């Protein structure tokens, strides 16, 4: 993967309202996305994902900080940037009374090379199994989403900015979408997608940024995220639980979520295994299961508060 940054965000903040109604939607965000990578932007509703995307597209203006795309200022050079970017909003609205073809033609005209773009749009629509002759009001939410994807991708942009792209898509189309994203990356193009679907992010993203309450909590590779230090451990003793073991485990700072059920004990362990093995040394361990944390666990760890994160 090349290390050239396609997207650079420095100290980007956005507040809405004023006085008592002032809301800090994004707080001093710093982020860089490299050319040729698929970057997942994770966070729950209200975390600031859409605000970030709208700032990147110059739909809203930052309270402070700046964003550069292709080395150009997201605000001053927005027209040139938009020429090279494809965008799918999270809540897609299109002209209800117009057909997919009419909308595609309008967008293609604005983008120039209308014939070439419209042809590519037709190929994308066929791949996504979308009938563009129907009016938007007659399309299901999933088909509207497909039309949004076609509009975002039909000019072969260098950077795709997608807000919750697979919302409403059926699993088969989601699979097609994943293939398309991987092909995009293979062509050296970049994708910045926001999502709360962890499996999707795990399946296609190279790196992930995790946003919480307007602050970027972490930027990690998918591998890096799944190699965080905690593990889920379940131990089943052949005989009764050794005397005092539950108390000893409970007193260990590296152990949390301790649960004792007869001769079975489960916990979450942070750090090395050795302290745990020394404590259980006196008992006969029949089964010991160690699970890597899922992305879901990691996600929850980021969002469940500082206490949980440190546990």
């Amino acid at each position, binding site marked *: 993967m090349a290390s050239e940054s396609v997207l650079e965000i420095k100290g980007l903040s956005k507040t809405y309202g004023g006085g008592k109604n002032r809301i800090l939607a994004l707080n001093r965000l710093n982020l860089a996305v490299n050319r040729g990578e698929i970057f997942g932007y994770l966070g729950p509703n209200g975390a600031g994902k859409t605000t970030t995307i709208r700032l990147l597209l110059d*739909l809203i*203006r930052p309270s402070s900080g700046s964003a550069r795309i292709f080395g150009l200022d997201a605000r001053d050079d927005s027209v040139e940037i938009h020429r090279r970017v494809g965008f799918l909003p999270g809540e897609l609205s299109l002209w209800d009374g117009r057909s997919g073809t009419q909308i595609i033609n309008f*967008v293609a005209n604005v*983008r120039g090379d209308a014939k070439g773009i419209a042809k590519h749009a037709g190929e994308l629509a066929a791949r996504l199994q979308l009938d563009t002759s129907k009016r938007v009001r007659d399309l299901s939410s999933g088909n509207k989403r497909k039309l949004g994807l076609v509009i975002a991708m039909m000019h072969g942009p260098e950077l795709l900015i997608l807000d919750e792209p697979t919302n409403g898509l059926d699993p088969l189309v989601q699979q097609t979408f994943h293939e398309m994203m991987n092909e995009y990356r293979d062509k050296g193009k970049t994708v910045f997608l926001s999502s709360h679907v962890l499996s999707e992010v795990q399946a296609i993203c190279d790196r992930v940024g995790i946003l919480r309450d307007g602050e970027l909590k972490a930027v990690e590779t998918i591998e890096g995220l799944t190699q965080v230090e905690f593990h889920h451990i379940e131990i089943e003793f052949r005989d009764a639980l050794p005397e005092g073991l539950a108390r000893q485990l409970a007193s260990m700072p590296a152990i949390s979520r301790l649960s004792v059920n007869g001769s079975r004990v489960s916990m979450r362990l942070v750090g090395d295994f050795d302290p745990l093995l020394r404590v259980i040394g006196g008992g006969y361990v029949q089964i010991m299961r160690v699970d890597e944390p899922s992305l879901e666990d990691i996600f929850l760890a980021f969002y469940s508060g500082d206490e949980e994160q440190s546990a």
Partner: protein
Amino acid sequence: MSGIVIGNTLRTSWKQILYWGLGLGALGLYIDFIASSPDIIAGYADLMSAMPPAMLQGAFGASSLELLTTSEGWIVTVFVSEAAIFLSVFAVLAGLNITANDEQSGVMDIILSLPISRASYMLGRWLGYALIGFGIVLVCALITTGGMMGMNIDAPPDVIFMSILNLYPGALLTMTVTCLLATVFRRRALAIGAAAAFVVLSYIFNVIGASASGAVADVMEALSYFTYVNGEGFALGTYDPANTAIVLIAALIGFGLSLKMFVSRDIGV
């Protein structure tokens, strides 16, 4: 780039020229029919002779009873003042269509993610609807004038035609004011209310200003855009092109303010 937006606006909304133009044209033919009957006009003249000036102005948009009792006067006052009110409805709706409707529905997010500046887009939309508005007034003027000629009404066609065409600057101003209000308030309902207040107050100011005397009445009359676009001037020979210019300049200033607001603020928030 604005040309593409103008073309798209015309392509998707050209039917409004037919609907509104034919609708107002039908009203024009109805007025022509009344104006073609000396008996009906004489009947109205009796009724109007007992009316105070404010009522005459409010009901018929006329300040001269003498003019109102002629076929020519009937068309350029009654029809033009009624058409101006109907046209205001179109102008308010068109003003909302420039950006407010797309912004409130969320379509603006897609539009402004395309390689087109906010200014180009708004200019294209404004010009597109300005052309549609002109088309409506032109169709209406052609039908009404044609109808008048077909009914052999004794009135100069050029005066009738120009007095109807003179509705356009007021419609353009109303459309632009609505666009400005929608850009400022960002909420369609609020913009509609404020634009309706603009039209109604303008009408009331015009009625009071034209029927009363004194400094306050003069100011009220000067503040109403109806003052500058009424059709009487063409029939009475008092039409002043400067009045049309004032309204057009006010529309251009309003559009400039709308543009400045739209370019500098957050979209869809």
